[in-house]
């Protein structure tokens, strides 16, 4: 079943481009140029996800985001200007599920949209993107992309290791294959990694003071992949 997206942006051309982009990738796409059209679309259609621009003439995106999130469960992806850290933080507090800076890379927007839809499709109560994940005394700060130990000391992570740990922690106690992990580990900034997943896992274990034994935090599942064992709490 095709998912329905509602794109709220005041830039006509961008709306059109996004409509074509998502339309070609099998989505039903609705567009709105501001608050009133958005409300109309939400009333008349079953919208699965709203892509909401922060900067809108008239009622701004933050205010629309807050109202929408109190009235419905429809997930919201905010488009913000990069660098406007305050907007980003406030946006998440206002009920957005995720955010993306402009100028975004279309494929990244697509990945985020799919991610949110998957989370909501799995029926999870909180489909918000978490700000931090907590496990075994560690805190993984998603915004800052680093670990914080139980004493409050920041332990930095290389980009690839961060993504692997984030993926493992987002799916605790679930085995993730090396291919799955390799997919997430190679981001745009880092490019394709020479290092294998195994090397990165062993480095992650060293940073986490994890011996990889029976009580390991990151367990090796032979011929399948890795899993992060234990309870993971989320800070939204």
């Amino acid at each position, binding site marked *: 079943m095709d998912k329905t997206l509602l794109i709220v942006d005041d830039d006509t051309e961008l709306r059109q481009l996004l409509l074509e982009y998502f339309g070609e990738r099998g989505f039903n796409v609705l567009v709105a140029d501001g608050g009133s059209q958005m409300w109309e679309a939400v009333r008349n259609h079953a919208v699965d996800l709203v892509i909401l621009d922060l900067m809108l003439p008239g009622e701004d995106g933050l205010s629309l985001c807050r109202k929408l999130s109190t009235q419905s469960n429809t997930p919201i992806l905010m488009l913000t200007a990069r660098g406007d850290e305050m907007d980003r933080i406030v946006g998440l507090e206002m009920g957005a599920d995720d955010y993306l800076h402009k100028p975004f890379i279309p494929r990244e927007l697509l990945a985020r949209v799919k991610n949110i839809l998957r989370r909501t499709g799995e029926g999870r109560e909180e489909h918000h993107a978490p700000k931090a994940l907590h496990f075994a005394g560690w805190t993984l700060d998603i915004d800052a992309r680093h670990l914080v130990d139980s004493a409050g000391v920041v332990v930095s992570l290389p980009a690839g290791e961060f993504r692997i740990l984030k993926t493992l922690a987002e799916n605790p106690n679930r085995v993730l294959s090396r291919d799955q992990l390799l997919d997430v580990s190679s981001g745009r900034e880092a490019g394709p*990694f020479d290092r294998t997943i195994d090397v990165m896992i062993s480095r992650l274990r060293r*940073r986490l003071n994890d011996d990889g034994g029976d009580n390991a935090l990151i367990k090796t599942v032979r011929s399948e992949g890795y899993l992060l064992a234990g309870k993971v709490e989320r800070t939204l």
Partner: protein
Amino acid sequence: MRLLPRTLYGQLLLSLCFGLIAAQAAGIWLTLNDRARFGEGLLGAFAAQRIAGVITILDQAEPSERARLVHSLNVPPTHVSLDESWQPASDESDATKSFVEHVQHELDRPVAIHVISIKPAAAHRREESPATAGAEHAREGAPDSSREGAKTGSAEPETQTAPGASADSSAASASATGAPAPVPTTDAERRANRRLHMNPPVLFVVGQARLTDGTVVTFRHSLPQPGMDWPMKLLGLLAILGISVALLSGWAVRRLTKPLASLADAAGGLAHNLDRPPLPETGPLEVSQAAKAFNSMQRELKRYLETRAQALAAVSHDLRMPITRLRLRLERLEEGELRTKMDNDLSEMDDMIGNTLEFLRAGSITEKASKVDLDTLIESVVEDMTSVGATIRQSGAISAPIEARPMALRRCLTNLLDNARRYGGGQIDISVTELSDAVEVNIEDRGPGIPESDLDRVFEPYVRVETSRAKHTGGTGLGLAIARAIAKSHGGDVRLKNRAGGGISAILTLPIQTVS
């Protein structure tokens, strides 16, 4: 000049204290002088009365009785004798005249009186040596002590003539030297004087009167120094005054100059931090006005810079929309070399905008400081840079976490390593050293280096050395500016220097404790 204090505080304090104490000293001196003159007047009147009394008694007495009378009238401080001849007056000063008038006024019958001299005996007394005092003591108990008037001057017989000597020679001597024959003073008297804290005589009046029957009476009267009791009490008073003036003016001047000092601090600090809290606009009018002016200058500067930053930010901001659209449009093109290149161009533009905004924000980072494990931070940055093709060798470690803003610091190190990778070529060495109060991260490349004159210039935004080469290697010209801004916001700095073996050494210093 060197002795004068250079601070306003010191100069004000010095001139205040000096001025006040000088004024007080002058005042005290004037008062004392006045008092002394008044005392002199009193003593003079007393002397005149006494001498008038002596003359009256002698004038009324039978000539035969006079010798006996003289003997009993000869009581210090007046010495009377009858066996000297009339001498011409040598002193015609106003003091002499008024003294004579005084004596005349006290007399019942007019008698011819003149004063031979009124002289301070200071010079005379100063020469009085301890040896003389010893000689005096040796003569104690002489039969007629009252007649030994000359003994105080016995050390200098040439200027002194005993009253008992021939009248002619005595008079000639007295008038010739100008030094009056001193009034005889007994040792007992001197002792009494000392006990009463009376000062030794300072003025000798030598005069003569011709009685009605023609007898010449010569009198020598010594006027004691009127109570110039400067000593301890006054000095104590001056000291108390001096101390209290010093303390009070010290306090007052400190109060006045303190706002000036904080103004200087504020002006000095403004270059580093435009967001420093405004100065308190208190204190004396001039000071509060200066503070007000300074605060408004700071506001204006800040506003001016903000306006410029906003303009730059707005342009950068507005470029995002077309870049976003271009990226979406590119998705419609077939995959291929052209599309990849255009993608890269867009990414570069995106980087420039990102860096510009980051640079504008670097001064006002909102990230909170926390304890950061610098070793793993460096390791992570090295790892990330290695994954994009750099060859980096890491060495050194520090013992404890430092206080820092982890994301900003990571950006700073990334920029420095990126710079070394772009311009250095070949291997990069990164080492960390712990100093007593700071951490030093040294990033060494093996590139061609930078001319010494440009070492500081490259930190300016958008400045690149060798533009053509920079274009070839990419970069926005903001990396080092951002790195330095971040280092400075941590209370540290980034410096560049050429290495002996070629290449650049970038040294990042971070204080271990403070984060502003």
